[in-house]
């Protein structure tokens, strides 16, 4: 049975579902960068669900102040990825294009003469090294999901000679879920959130993508999942994102 929920909660639920298993069997370690409350909540939801099944998933949230979610210093999360000890990470972007190139830097001529954002952070390394990187955005529009990014903070795919154990796995938006096909270097529409349609997705997406004839509707979380999300997960994510925990998940 499903119950009404916010779009953010739906996104968290979908991401957690993607991470229930890892690239090599069980999921061992999920990492989240700055400004990532939805991925952070998804990681915690995955962890809590695994814990209920007696399994331990490590979650590292950059900027989280409390055990067990903080990292062992700022270098550690990157070294972890280099060691192959990080299964999932998340990236967003002011622009994301159809080849899963991510732009965190700005618009216009370099270094961002039309709009300048914060910078590329760890993307130019983690996108290569983490087996499954999940992209996310809260703005599913032709402004963000573009045909070609103005600047490649981190490329979606690489030539065959480039060492790259990692790369894009999925893209979650407020409208739908795309999975990424690394061979084809294209997204494939995997499910559409309630209230959207194949046409509405096409209308708001600036890049070409593959889609099956019948696209399933995104499965909403059940009551137990929502209770877990609004309870223990909300309390935990408040250590990094108190405002998000309160405003979106209703944490006290």
């Amino acid at each position, binding site marked *: 049975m499903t119950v009404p929920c916010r779009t953010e909660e739906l996104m968290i639920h979908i991401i957690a579902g993607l991470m229930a298993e890892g690239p090599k069997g069980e999921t061992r370690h999920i990492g989240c960068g700055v400004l990532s409350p939805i991925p952070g909540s998804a990681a915690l939801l995955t962890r809590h669900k695994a814990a209920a099944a007696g399994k331990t998933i490590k979650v590292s949230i950059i900027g989280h102040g409390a055990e067990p979610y903080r990292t062992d210093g700022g270098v550690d999360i990157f070294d972890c990825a*280099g060691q192959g000890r990080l299964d999932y990470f998340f990236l967003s972007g002011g622009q994301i294009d159809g080849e899963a190139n991510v732009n965190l*830097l700005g618009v216009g001529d370099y270094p961002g003469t039309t709009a300048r954002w*914060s910078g*590329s952070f760890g993307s*130019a*390394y983690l996108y290569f090294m983490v087996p499954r990187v999940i992209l996310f955005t809260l703005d599913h529009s032709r402004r963000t999901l573009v045909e070609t990014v103005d600047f490649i903070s981190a490329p979606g795919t690489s030539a065959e000679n480039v060492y790259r154990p990692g790369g894009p796995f999925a893209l979650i938006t407020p409208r739908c879920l795309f999975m990424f096909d690394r061979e084809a270097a294209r997204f494939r529409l995997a499910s559409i959130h309630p209230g959207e349609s194949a046409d509405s997705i096409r209308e708001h997406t600036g890049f070409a993508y593959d889609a099956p004839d019948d696209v399933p509707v995104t499965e909403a979380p059940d009551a137990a999942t929502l209770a877990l999300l609004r309870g223990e997960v909300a309390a935990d994510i408040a250590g990094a994102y108190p405002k998000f925990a309160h405003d979106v998940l209703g944490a006290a």
Partner: protein
Amino acid sequence: MQTTDAIAARIPDGAKLAVFKDRSCAMDVTRALVRRGVRDLHLVCVPTSGFQAELLIAGGCVATIETSGVSLGEIGPAPAFARAVKSGAIRIMDSTCPAIYAQLQAAEKGNPFAPLRGLIGSGILDTRPDYKLIQNPFAEDGRDDPIVALPALAPEIALFHAPFADEAGNVWIGRQPELKLMAHAAAETLVTVEDIRPGNMMEDETLAAAAIPAFYIAAIARAPRGAWPLPLPGHYADDEAALREYAAAAKTGDGLRAWLDANIHGAPASPAAAE
């Protein structure tokens, strides 16, 4: 023992100055630098920065910034930074976090460079002619295996704020080993602390593990709440109201000038100093 102003006085115009992320920042010294009107800093952000870089840029103190990102976190973008980069008022050397760490670690070890995976195909590589593509000398069977070589990065000065120092001049940094990396890579390290404790923390096995020995420290000043309005982990959180007030004011050039006049040029260094 030094004063905050004496610490700031050791940072000359044009210095290549390393600062740390968005916490444990020596903000009293930063304000003193803006007040003094230091010019042409080459700011090395380890590996990003927040309000500290924003304030130095807002104050006209920065010529070049080397960083993986500048933002005010949950509060939003860094307005003076974004304006200065867009207008070309400052030169930016964009990087990615592990590259800056690796460059500092190369300097720490006396290596001329460090290899790093990733980066190939990122626009960062196009904008950084000082990052070079080489062949992995250990590629199997002479396979083509390009890898990025990053030049060592040795700042002239590392500056940060720590929980406490001791009478012997050792500095306790807790769970922020990057501060030790900064001290090793930089020619000179300047520190402010909440407190100076008696004795020698190096004689305490538990404290010593997270201490930077006095040998690496050029000068220390006591500055209670010296990271304000940024947080000092384990001691105080950020002052979100103060940061939001800044962010709102700095949306326009006029608003920023008024904020600087009220909060820097005409104000004491920190709330504690005002008491």
